[in-house]
C-alpha cells in the first residue's frame, strides 16, 4: 500500500516536473542554479526581469510551426 502510494506520488511528481519543464515554468529556477554554479558572485536578475528578457529573446525567431 505504502509502496503503491509512493509509486503514484513519484509518477505524479515526475509528470509535474515534465510539464513544468516543457512549459518553461521552471526556467527561472534553472537560471538561478546556473548562476550559482557558474557566476556565484554576480547578482542574478530578479524573477520579473528574467521573465521579461526571456520572452523578448524567445520570440525573435521562428520557433513554432504551422
Amino acid at each position, binding site marked *: 500500500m505504502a509502496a503503491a502510494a509512493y509509486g503514484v506520488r513519484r509518477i505524479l511528481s515526475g509528470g509535474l516536473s515534465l510539464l513544468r519543464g516543457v*512549459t518553461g515554468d521552471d526556467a527561472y529556477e534553472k537560471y538561478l542554479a546556473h548562476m550559482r554554479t557558474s557566476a556565484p558572485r554576480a547578482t542574478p536578475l530578479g524573477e520579473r526581469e528574467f521573465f521579461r528578457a526571456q520572452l523578448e529573446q524567445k520570440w525573435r525567431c521562428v*520557433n513554432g510551426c504551422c
Partner: protein
Amino acid sequence: MKAKLVAALLAVVGGGALAGIALLRNEPINSLWIVTAAACIYVLGYRFYAKWIETRVYVIDRSRATPAERLSNGRDFVPTQRWVLFGHHFAAIAGAGPLVGPTLAMQFGYLPGTLWLLVGAVLGGCVQDMTVLFISTRRNGKSLGQMARDELGPLGGTAAMLGTLMIVVIVIAVLGLVVVNAMKHSPWATFTVMMTIPIALLVGLYMRVWRPGKVLEGSIIGLALLLFAVVAGGWVANDPVWGPRFNFEGVSLAWLVIAYGWVAAILPVWVLLAPRDYISTFLKISVVLLLVLAVVAIHPEIRMPALTRFTDGTGPLFAGKVFPFVFITIACGALSGFHALVSSGTTPKMVSNEGDIRLAGYGSMAVESLVGIMAVIAATLLDPGVYFAINSGAGVVGAAAADAVHTISGWGFPVTVDQMQQLAKSVGESSLFARTGGAPSLAVGMASIFGSAFGRGLLAVWYHFAIMFEAIFILTTVDAGTRACRFLLQDGLGQVVKPLGRTSWYPSVLIASSLVVAAWGYFLYVGVIDPNGGINILWPLFGIANQMLAAIALSVCTGVLIKSGKFRYAWVTALPLAWISIVTSTAALQKIFSPDAKLGFFAGADALAGQLAAGSLPAARAAVAPTLIFNQRLDGWLTVLFLLLMWIVIAEMLRIAWRHLAGKPVPATSEAPRVATRLDAVLRGAP
C-alpha cells in the same frame, strides 16, 4: 535476442495491419488497423532506422559537450532533460498543419494519404528533422539559413533565407484563411475565438504583474477560461440580440484577422503572443493525448473508400492527380520543410547530450505524424458525402444546398439536405455546406470521436472546442510568424537603410510589420473573396513552398554529410531529397504549365479573363474577377520562383559535393571543435 524478437513481432503486426489496410477493399475497415500499423511502423523506424543513422551515419559522441553545456547561459543555452526536450520540440513543431493537410488529402480516399504519412515520416520527415537538429547542435545551434551560407556558400544561403521569408508569409495567409472559413457565419465559433484575445491578455498580465514567471498557473487559468468561453459561445450564439452581432461575413473576418495580426506584431510579446502560446502548448499536449486515447477506445469504422474517383485530378477540394498532389497537400505530418527552421532554432541550444537527438528529432516528428493519422481518422469516419459537402466550395458544387447534394450524390457519395441540416443542428451551426479549409470537417470528426467517448449530448460543445483548438494554434502562427518575418525583414532592410535594421526603433517596427502584414493579408483577402473557397489555390501553393524548404533543408544535410566524409551514407537524406524534389518540381510545373483552368495558375487566369471579356460572368463574380486573375498570375510567378530557389540550392549542393569528392577546395566545415562533456549523466536524466 529479446530486441530481435520484439522487432520481429512488431514487423509482423505492423506489416499485417498495413497489408490489411491496403488489401481490404469493398468493405469498411476499422481505424484500429491504421493506428496499429502506424504505431508499429513508428516504433520500428525509431528503434532501428533512427538508431542506425545515429550510430553509423552521424556517429554521435555521448562524451562530447553540446552547445547547451559549452555556451550555457541559463537562458537560451540550457542543458535540458531529454523528455522535456522532446516535449518542447514536439510543442514547437506541432500546429494546425498536420490536422488540415491530411483532412484535405482525403478527397483521394484514405489510402494514399495514410501511406504517405507513414512512409514519408519514417524515411523522410523524421530523418530531416533529426539530421537538421544534429548538424545544428554540432554548429552551436545555428539556423538553417546560416548553415546554408556557411556550408554551401552565399548563393545557397541567400536562396534559403528568401525561401524562409516567403514560406512564412504563405503559411500565415493559408492558415488565416482556414480560421476565417471556420468562423464565417458562425457566431459560436467567432465568439469563442475572439474570447481567446481577452483571455490571453489576462493571462499575460497574470504572468507579468501578479505572478511573474508562473507559467503553469497562468496556463491552467487560461485553459479553464477558454473552456468556459467554448460553453458561453453557445449561449451567445442562441441569444437573439448577441448572436447576430457575432455573425460575420468572410471579408469582415479577414480584415479583423489582418488588424489583429498587425496589432499583435507591434505589441510587446508578453501582452498577447507569449500567454496564448503558453495556453496553446498546454492545450496541444492534452488534446493530442485525449484524441489518441479516444480513437483507440472507440475505434470507429472508416467510411471513406480506399481510393476515390478523384485520384484522376478532378477533385472538388483542389485540382490535381494523386501524384504529385497528395505529397504536396500533406506536408506537416509526413515531411515538412518548416520543421527545419524549428530544429535549427531553440531546440539545438537545449540538447544536453547528442544521445538525446534521436528522441527529440525523430521521436517528435513520429508523434506529429500520428497526429496526422488522427486527422485522417477524423475525416474518414464521416460519410464521404458529408465530407465532400462540407469541404467543397460553392463555386464547385453550387451555392444552393439542393444543387450541392445533387452534385455530390451524383459522384457516388450519397448525402441529403436533411442529413446536413441535422448534422449542422447537432453541432450548433446554421449550415455546414461549403465550409472549406478542412477545420470544420475535422471538428465534426473530432466532435464525433469525443462525443462517442465522453458523451454525445455535448456534440455542439465538442465541435466548437475543436474549432477553438485549431484557431488558437493558427492565431499563434499568425502573430508569431508575423513577428519572425518582421525581424527577418528588418535585418534585410537594415542592409540597405541602416536605421531600419534597428529592431526596436519604432518607425522601423511599424514599416516592417506593415509590409509583412500587407503581404500575407493580400493572399488572405483574395482567398476569402474567391467563390471556389480559396483553399484550392492557396493550399497547393503553401505545399509547394513548404516542400521547397524541405528540399533546401535536405540539401544542406546532404552537403554536410558528404563534406564530412560520409558519402556512402549520404543517401539517408539524398533519397528523400530526390523524392521531394521530383514531387515538388512535377507539381510546380503542372501549376505553371497545365492548360487545365482548374489546375494551372496561368490557365486559370486566362480562362477567367476570357469569361470576363465575353461578359459571361454573373455581376458578383465579374466584380472580383480582376483581383482573382491578377492573383492567379502572381501565384504562377511565385511558383516559378520557388522552383528556381529550390534548384539553385540543390545545384549548389551538388557542385560543392562534386568539388569535395574531386579533392577541390570547398567552404570549410562550420562544425564546432570537440570538447569533452563534464555533465553528469545521472543528473541529466539519461537512461
